[in-house]
């Protein structure tokens, strides 16, 4: 971030405009397109479905009001999930949000073309005797292109056009409501149409809630424009609340007017009549009781779908812009046109998606999927608000604070899960779409976005020298951080031995650490010193060995971060670190940096305690866990090959297991299986056959291992689990042993599997460790 100028949007949206952006996004498909369909699903209880959706939405809207005021950045929900949730969550939130808004845009473009077709039919326009329905798709493309052009012109034009459209359609809807209510007032008998209220039971109400949920997400667009809002601390939360105060009563009253004022002229209930007319139900209803009803409703429908299309084009562009800026999508998504100050390439990409979906995909099913995606996105946001408060709580400037925190977001989560699960009952296809889209997102994240995200976060390399290394890919790489002159020779000798044994190379890394108070650029001043003081000596030490060497200098806030970045960027296979023998901080297991590298580095880690490992005659290897056994033996074998070291493998069991022959045998076989990994990992070497393991039963294993360690030149210990998990699950045995063991010590930790690594990251994240690490 620091090395790139940050692209910013201009702040020129006031309270009225930004409220209208939200209202415009909501009063679109919800009323004009979905009212007829939803009435056919819920019956007269459609008004209840709108009211209940209003309450569910209100809870999430409070989260949006708080976060939108505290972090008013383009991207909204996507950005907060990025702040508040670990791993692929942020990417998926953006990915789903982008798709959901674009699909909503496609739906509105198609809704527009349906209404326009009806206008053409009213005027008896013909198309070479072909059905006018053939015009639907081309008209949808044309209107999408027009709004792409309007959005390209800039936010002021967008806001002005949006305001006019939104106000106009509120007036038309107001006339519809007034006419409908007047008709009911004139014919009190019409009130009987509301009985039975829910002919399809509460299930019908829930189905209508799920179906119309997309009509309530417009407030999300308010916060997506966060970077463009004047006085965002005040205006964003107010606009979120005001837009709901305008929209929800309108929805309810439209439902009342539509169901109550329609005269079907037969025994057919009005709600069924509306359902049969589907997306044009409202326009057909207006024909009956509203002066100039059809014409006005058609105008209203066209304006609504236009303003909703405008808002969703705006929001899908902002989400993809934010994702491009965060390197989750290609960089061109973040490019801003210097004249119009709009993210034009993100707009073109989003517009293309809108048009493609409108033209090529059966939009009704994908629109239902958009409902589920919005539910999942809002669910993530409600989790994120809890973690963001915990991580950054008192460091943010809030314009609004949610009442009953954290119970309000928890209640929202529960209610949204209920609706989302019910949506599966209602439309399994929608869930299949969601799962498919999320699946593609996962693949994209792990194959593309994750690497770019890491590269963006990585600490800068300021010097890289190929001393005797070549650019050959696939070499086994042993990384040695060489900051401490007291341990550097020991580490280099060991790394040299490993690299020679694996025909690999040694990477010498010096991390220049700069405190958070100073910019990283300050580190540039120390490059020469870092190179001369330690790196050159280290290179000299390795000169006698015939192995490739690479020297790297990085600048970082913490040494561990520099090491982890180097491991990730250059596919390092093993890190070798030194330990002075006591933890640097009461909360650490071995040391702050070593703990962090062991936890986060995606490679084998070996920690050495002791001065000289060049003359090890015998070595004690107490194998406890099969997972580490292979690496422990592999290290031991290297010593055996290079220094003719005698290896003694032990496995200690408790007296209970020792007395149970079956349990004892199972444990030993598990260890042997782990040890076989040592042979499998080095297929080029000749198999060594099974080494004998001494199995002994001891009541005090820690004391026994400590006692044994004093009889040997060196001991290899396996770090069975990482960090807190180790403390929590297997107690503190390994660390006790590490502290008490006599003589030279090697602590080894094997590379984690990717899934295990991901799970650990998530668990650690929610414990707040990642935040702590980043803060330091």
């Amino acid at each position, binding site marked *: *971030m*620091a090395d790139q100028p*940050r692209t910013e949007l201009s702040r020129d949206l006031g309270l009225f405009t930004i409220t209208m952006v939200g209202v415009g996004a909501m009063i679109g498909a919800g009323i004009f397109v979905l009212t007829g369909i939803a009435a056919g699903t819920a019956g*007269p*209880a459609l*008004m*209840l479905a709108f*009211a*209940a959706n*209003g*309450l569910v939405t*209100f809870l999430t809207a*409070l989260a949006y*009001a708080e976060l939108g005021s*505290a*972090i*008013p*950045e383009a991207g909204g929900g996507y950005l907060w999930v*990025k*702040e508040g949730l670990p791993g692929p969550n942020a990417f998926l939130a953006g990915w789903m949000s982008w798709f959901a808004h674009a699909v909503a845009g496609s739906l509105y473009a198609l809704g527009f073309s349906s209404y326009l077709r009806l206008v053409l039919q009213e005027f008896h326009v013909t198309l070479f005797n072909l059905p006018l329905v053939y015009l639907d798709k081309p008209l949808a493309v044309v209107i999408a292109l027009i709004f792409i052009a309007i959005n390209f012109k800039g936010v002021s034009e967008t806001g002005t056009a949006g305001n006019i459209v939104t106000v106009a359609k509120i007036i038309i809807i107001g006339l519809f409501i007034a006419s409908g209510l007047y008709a009911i007032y004139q014919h009190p008998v019409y*009130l009987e*149409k*509301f*009985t*039975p*209220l*829910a002919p399809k039971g*509460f299930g019908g*109400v829930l189905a209508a809630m799920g179906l119309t949920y997309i009509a309530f997400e417009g407030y999300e667009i308010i916060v997506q424009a966060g970077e463009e809002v004047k006085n965002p*601390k*005040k205006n964003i*939360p*107010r606009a979120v*609340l*005001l837009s*709901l*105060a305008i929209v929800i*009563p309108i929805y*309810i009253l439209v439902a009342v007017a539509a169901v109550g004022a329609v005269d079907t002229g037969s025994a057919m209930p009005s709600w069924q009549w509306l359902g049969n007319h589907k997306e044009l139900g409202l326009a057909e209803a207006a024909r009956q009781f509203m002066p100039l009803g059809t014409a006005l409703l058609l105008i209203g429908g066209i304006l609504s779908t236009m303003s909703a299309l405008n808002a969703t084009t705006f929001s899908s562009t902002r989400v993809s812009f934010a994702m491009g800026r*965060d390197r989750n999508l290609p960089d061109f998504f973040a490019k801003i046109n210097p004249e119009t100050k709009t993210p034009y390439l993100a707009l073109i990409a989003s517009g293309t998606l809108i048009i493609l979906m409108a033209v090529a995909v059966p939009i009704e099913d994908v629109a239902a999927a958009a409902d589920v995606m919005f539910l999942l996105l809002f669910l993530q946001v409600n989790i994120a608000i809890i973690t963001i*408060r915990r991580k*950054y*709580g*008192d*460091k*943010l*400037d*809030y*314009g*609004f*604070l*949610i*009442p*009953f*925190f954290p119970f309000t977001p928890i209640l929202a989560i529960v209610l949204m899960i209920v609706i989302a699960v019910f949506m599966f009952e209602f439309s399994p296809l929608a869930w299949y779409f969601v799962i498919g889209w999320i699946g593609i997102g996962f693949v994209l994240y792990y194959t593309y976005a994750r690497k770019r995200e890491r590269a963006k*976060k990585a600490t800068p390399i300021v010097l890289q020298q190929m001393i005797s290394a070549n650019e050959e890919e696939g070499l086994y790489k042993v990384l040695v951080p060489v900051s401490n002159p007291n341990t550097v020779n020991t580490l280099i000798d060991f790394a040299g031995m490993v690299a020679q044994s694996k025909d690999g190379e040694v990477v010498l890394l010096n991390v220049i650490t700069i405190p*958070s108070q100073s910019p990283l650029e300050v580190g540039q001043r120390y490059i020469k010193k870092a190179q001369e003081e330690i790196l050159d000596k280290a290179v000299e030490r390795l000169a006698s060995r015939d192995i490739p060497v690479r020297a790297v200098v990085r600048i970082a806030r913490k040494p561990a971060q520099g090491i982890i970045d180097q491991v990730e960027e250059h596919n390092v296979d093993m890190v070798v670190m030194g330990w002075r023998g006591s933890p640097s901080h009461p909360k650490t297991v071995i040391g702050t940096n070593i703990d962090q590298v062991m936890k986060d580095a995606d490679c084998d880690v070996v920690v050495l305690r002791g001065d000289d490992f060049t003359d090890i005659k015998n070595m004690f290897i107490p194998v406890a866990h099969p997972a580490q056994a292979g690496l422990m033996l592999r290290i031991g074998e290297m010593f055996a090959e290079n220094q003719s070291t005698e290896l003694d493998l032990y496995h200690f069991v408790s007296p209970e297991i020792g007395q149970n022959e079956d349990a004892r045998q199972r444990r030993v076989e598990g260890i042997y299986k782990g040890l076989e990994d040592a042979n499998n990992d080095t297929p080029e070497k000749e198999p060594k056959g099974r080494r004998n393991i001494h199995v002994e039963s001891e009541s005090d294993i820690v004391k026994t291992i400590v006692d044994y360690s004093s009889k040997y030149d060196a001991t290899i210990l396996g770090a069975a689990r990482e960090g807190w998990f180790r403390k929590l699950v297997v107690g503190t045995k390994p660390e006790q042993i590490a502290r008490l063991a006599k003589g030279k010590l090697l602590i080894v930790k094997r590379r984690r599997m990717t899934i295990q690594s991901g799970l650990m990251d998530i668990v650690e994240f929610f414990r707040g460790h990642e*935040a702590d690490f*980043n*803060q330091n």
Partner: protein
Amino acid sequence: MSMEDLKEQGVLLPEEEWGAHNLKTTSPQLADALLFIIAIIGCVMVYYGDGNKWTWIGIVIFFLAFFSIIWLNDRAVKKQRERFREERSENK
């Protein structure tokens, strides 16, 4: 995204203000809770009123409760800004 990124974006408070601001909502929670429950009761009345008198009473109750809760929270936004300014001036 880290603390440093948020700092660069100008989203974080200056360090001397960390922990200096109250994180309790300025919205009256008891009133919020009561109004939310009343709005739910309104919905229940709509459903069980089955299109008769209690349905319409339920809708009116829902509207009143809903507008009130929006009004309270909108007022809380203004109060929050005032409180923030006061806390900031006290710290100086």
